């Protein structure tokens, strides 16, 4: 057993809750229960997963796994016999949820309305499924509970009368949400207000069931899930203040208070919930994702499955309080929805599954003794209270819930052609799972899925994700050709949609698009993601000067994507243009002021301009947002050195080393500070010894096929101030002789230690010999690529002149084979980094290419001198 920190845990789920809405409400005293709650514990942002779809996320929260492992792939799933669709069920979950694990260790759990939790699982305790609150009959008619809603069935009678029917919601209950309509007694007049009443009723039903169980039943673990904030937001966030020009005054007046009222209602429910727990209970309150409430609110919801998820933001909320948890409103950072199950296990002192994808949130704990681990809870035998694989539920019982998903716009209405609909739904689910896999770094497997579903359907959303995945895998050629295909498909899709819309308009049918919608433009511009993708591709292949204008074009049209400004800023950073870099990072932070990377990059721009005080602020903010990035601490250290605060600098470098053991530059600083500033020779020696013993030398290797231009790059490096190695008697300027590689590379076949001669220097090596480099060193390889025809023609010229010693033509034609071998060697060696340089770029864009090379080498090379070497020629 690990250290037990608590006896009981209560998890309260608020779907889509977001600090951006909560913080001002707390400041105004409108959410007193939550304010008090976080002041007594810890709080912070929690990162969602992609795609931010609630059934997948809440299952990740309850299991510690992503969708490809837990098995819940979206909102709906096909019926086992393929005859239709149904909302996702617990029978599809492939792994144990936290309550199943707790079941195995003899703990009692109550679970209310978790998504999905139908059919209710036979656990030791009570499970009230997510169909409990859904009214399937008008008020006054017998409102039966679908089979499987409650376990054990003996609880049905005492729970069924606690449900609130939407038609029971009175004017005084709705008044805080829609005071104008309540005053005018028009609550049931239009669809939106009926929707609001329904959401209030659902929340009240779930809260009534959970408070009943808290009062009447013994429990060790309790989990209650509310979807109401998400639903209030989808219904009315567009009317939330501030009013945007496209929202009418009347709608704004009527619905601008719904979101606020929804949060305040949850605060009231939280207050009651907290009254019902004892002091042995640790409470975790969280959401699965956030919800855009400001200028990032989308103007249009894409007309596609799960389109409304575009309103979700990537950060939700987490707050914890009670035994085992730090007190005093401590902010925590870097948490993920995957961390909840491991953290609950650690709170109980139970081992965490090594196969779980999340981590224990130790920063929330008072006592950080490490948790114990087991290989996997899946292998642990014993009664877990899951359904048997064979068990199926009555699909028709779920139809009302399915209809609600249609109403919310999450899924399309069912087609007559059910088989096609099921196939479409399956593909869509595969798409979500593939995105989830990409999010977890399982990109190769995701690509297999995406290639298949894109090929089957030619749906551009699938192609878009596939192109980003190709980019991630560095499959640049595939990415490039897919971008070209997507450009054609997007144009074709636009043409078809426009024709359809025109036809519907002519027939006087109700249209999905208002007059301002871009669909009405005859010549629609290509979607921005294609330009963005292309820019990222250009960045990846080291052509930032081509990426920059495209990114700026994207930035002009899309003001809500901070990554665009971040990428432009990084290009400026690389080019040492710190003032414009600063502007871009400020622009990115104006969109997402909690981006750790944004604060870090801004700090770096300040630091490079000697604005040390503001740099300090930015690095500290970045660390507050995400403590676990070693470079944040390293640059904080550098800043503190400039401020002559050597003791704090030492602390920062020490943290950087703890996070990345062996970070040479931090050891160098520590050696310097202990010996020169802090008079601690013992510690200085420790770091010196460490550097001598563990840090490998670094060698710059310039490579390419003979006559590809590698010599030119070597000369540029020399002009920039980099020390280079050349054979005695070799004249780098003589282009009439066959190109040579540095002779050391041959010697290395027999004497690996000879590499020390090349430490911190640059040398030229032919592609086919690069594998001779000993693996205990670190290499930066600059690969110079040149058109094969040009290489052959150059080779012919030289052969004609010298008649001998030139590279045989076969070797030239074996270029691809050699290149593959080199790439395999590089990918197998983590201590090797490679930069591709196109020879033609070197000639056409010498300044820009010099900047890229200098950035890659990481030294302060003289790029002007490097550029002039090419210009002179």
């Amino acid at each position, binding site marked *: 057993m690990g250290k037990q920190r608590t006896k009981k845990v209560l998890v309260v789920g608020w779907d889509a809750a977001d600090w951006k809405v909560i913080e001002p409400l707390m400041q105004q005293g409108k959410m007193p229960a939550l304010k008090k709650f976080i002041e007594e514990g810890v709080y912070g942002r929690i990162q969602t997963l992609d795609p931010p779809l609630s059934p997948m996320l809440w299952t990740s929260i309850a299991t510690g796994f992503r969708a490809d492992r837990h098995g819940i792939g979206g909102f709906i799933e096909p019926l086992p016999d393929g005859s239709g669709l149904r909302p996702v069920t617990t029978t599809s979950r492939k792994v144990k949820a936290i309550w199943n694990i707790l079941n195995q260790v003899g703990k009692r759990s109550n679970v209310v309305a978790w998504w999905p939790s139908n059919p209710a699982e036979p656990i030791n305790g009570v499970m009230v499924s997510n169909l409990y609150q859904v009214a399937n009959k008008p008020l006054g008619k017998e409102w039966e509970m679908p089979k499987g809603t409650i376990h054990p069935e003996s609880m049905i009678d005492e729970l069924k*009368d*606690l449900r*609130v029917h939407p038609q*029971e919601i*009175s*004017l*005084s*209950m709705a008044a*805080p949400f829609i005071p104008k309509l309540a005053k005018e007694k028009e609550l049931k007049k239009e669809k939106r207000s009926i929707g609001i009443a329904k959401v*209030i009723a659902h*929340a*009240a039903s779930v*809260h*009534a*069931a*959970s*408070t*009943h169980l808290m*009062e009447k039943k013994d429990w060790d673990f309790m989990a209650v899930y509310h979807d109401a904030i998400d639903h209030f937001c989808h219904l009315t966030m567009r009317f939330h203040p501030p009013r945007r020009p496209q929202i009418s005054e009347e709608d704004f007046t009527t619905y601008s208070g719904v979101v606020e*009222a929804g949060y305040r*209602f949850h605060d*009231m*429910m939280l*207050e*009651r*919930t907290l*009254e*019902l727990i004892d002091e042995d209970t640790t409470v975790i309150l969280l959401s699965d994702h956030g919800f855009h409430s400001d200028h990032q609110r989308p103007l249009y919801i894409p007309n596609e499955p799960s389109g409304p998820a575009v309103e979700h933001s990537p950060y939700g909320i987490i707050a914890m309080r009670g035994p085992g948890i730090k007190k005093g409103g401590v902010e925590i950072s870097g948490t993920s929805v995957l961390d909840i199950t491991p953290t609950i296990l650690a709170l109980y002192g139970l081992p965490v599954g090594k196969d779980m994808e999340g981590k224990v949130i130790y920063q929330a704990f008072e006592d950080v003794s490490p948790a114990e681990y087991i290989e996997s809870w899946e292998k642990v035998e014993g009664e877990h209270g899951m359904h048997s694989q064979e068990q199926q539920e009555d699909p028709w019982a779920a139809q009302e819930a399915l209809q609600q998903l249609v109403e919310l716009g999450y899924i399309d209405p069912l087609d007559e052609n059910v088989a096609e609909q099921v196939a479409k739904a399956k593909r869509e689910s595969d798409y979500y799972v593939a995105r989830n896999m990409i999010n977890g770094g399982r990109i190769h497997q995701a690509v297999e899925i995406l290639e298949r579903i894109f090929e089957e359907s030619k749906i551009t959303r699938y192609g878009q994700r596939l192109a980003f995945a190709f980019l991630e895998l560095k499959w640049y050629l595939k990415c490039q050709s897919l971008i070209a295909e997507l450009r054609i498909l997007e144009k074709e899709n636009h043409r078809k949609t426009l024709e359809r819309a025109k036809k519907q308009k002519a027939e006087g049918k109700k249209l999905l698009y208002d007059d301002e919608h871009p669909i009405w433009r005859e010549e629609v511009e290509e979607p921005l993601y294609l330009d963005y993708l292309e820019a990222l591709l250009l960045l990846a292949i080291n052509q930032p000067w081509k990426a920059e204008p495209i990114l700026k074009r994207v930035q002009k049209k899309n003001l809500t994507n901070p990554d665009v400004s971040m990428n432009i800023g990084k290009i400026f950073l690389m080019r040492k243009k710190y003032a414009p870099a600063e502007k871009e990072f400020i622009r990115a932070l104006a969109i997402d002021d909690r981006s750790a990377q944004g604060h870090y990059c801004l700090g770096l721009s300040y630091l490079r301009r000697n604005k040390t005080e503001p740099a300090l602020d930015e690095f500290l903010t970045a660390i507050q947002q995400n403590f676990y990035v070693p470079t944040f601490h390293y640059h904080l250290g550098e800043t503190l050195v400039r401020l002559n605060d050597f003791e704090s600098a030492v602390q920062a470098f020490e943290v950087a080393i703890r996070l990345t053991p062996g970070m040479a530059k931090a050891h160098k600083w520590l050696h310097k500070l202990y010996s020169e500033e802090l008079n601690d020779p013992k510690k200085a020696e420790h770091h010196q010894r460490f550097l001598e013993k563990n840090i490998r030398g670094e060698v710059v290797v310039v490579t390419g096929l003979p006559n590809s231009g590698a010599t030119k790059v070597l000369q540029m490096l020399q002009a920039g101030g980099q020390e280079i190695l050349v054979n005695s008697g070799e004249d780098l300027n003589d282009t009439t002789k066959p190109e040579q590689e540095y002779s050391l590379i041959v010697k290395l076949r027999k004497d690996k230690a000879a590499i020390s001669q090349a430490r911190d220097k640059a040398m030229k090596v032919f592609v086919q010999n690069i594998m001779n480099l000993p693996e205990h060193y670190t290499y930066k390889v600059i690969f110079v690529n040149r058109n094969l025809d040009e290489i052959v023609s150059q080779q012919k010229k030289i052969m004609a002149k010298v008649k001998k010693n030139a590279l045989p033509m076969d070797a030239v034609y074996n270029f691809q084979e050699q290149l593959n071998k080199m790439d395999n060697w590089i990918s197998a060696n983590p201590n090797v980094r490679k930069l591709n340089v196109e020879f033609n770029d070197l000639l056409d864009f010498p300044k820009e290419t010099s900047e890229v090379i200098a950035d890659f080498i990481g030294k302060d090379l003289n790029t002007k001198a490097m550029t002039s070497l090419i210009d002179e020629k």
Partner: protein
Amino acid sequence: MKEKKEFKVTAEGSLGILALGAVGIRLWRQAKEEKEKTKGKTKRSENGKTKN
């Protein structure tokens, strides 16, 4: 000691009563039933008056 709050529970109900959870729902249902009963009595007595 937790501070005791007093609620006036009407048949119309309120968000506050819903936020009380199970206890609130029961009290609200009770208030509605009582109102129904009172309504019935009034009607009966009104009917009686008419008869008389």
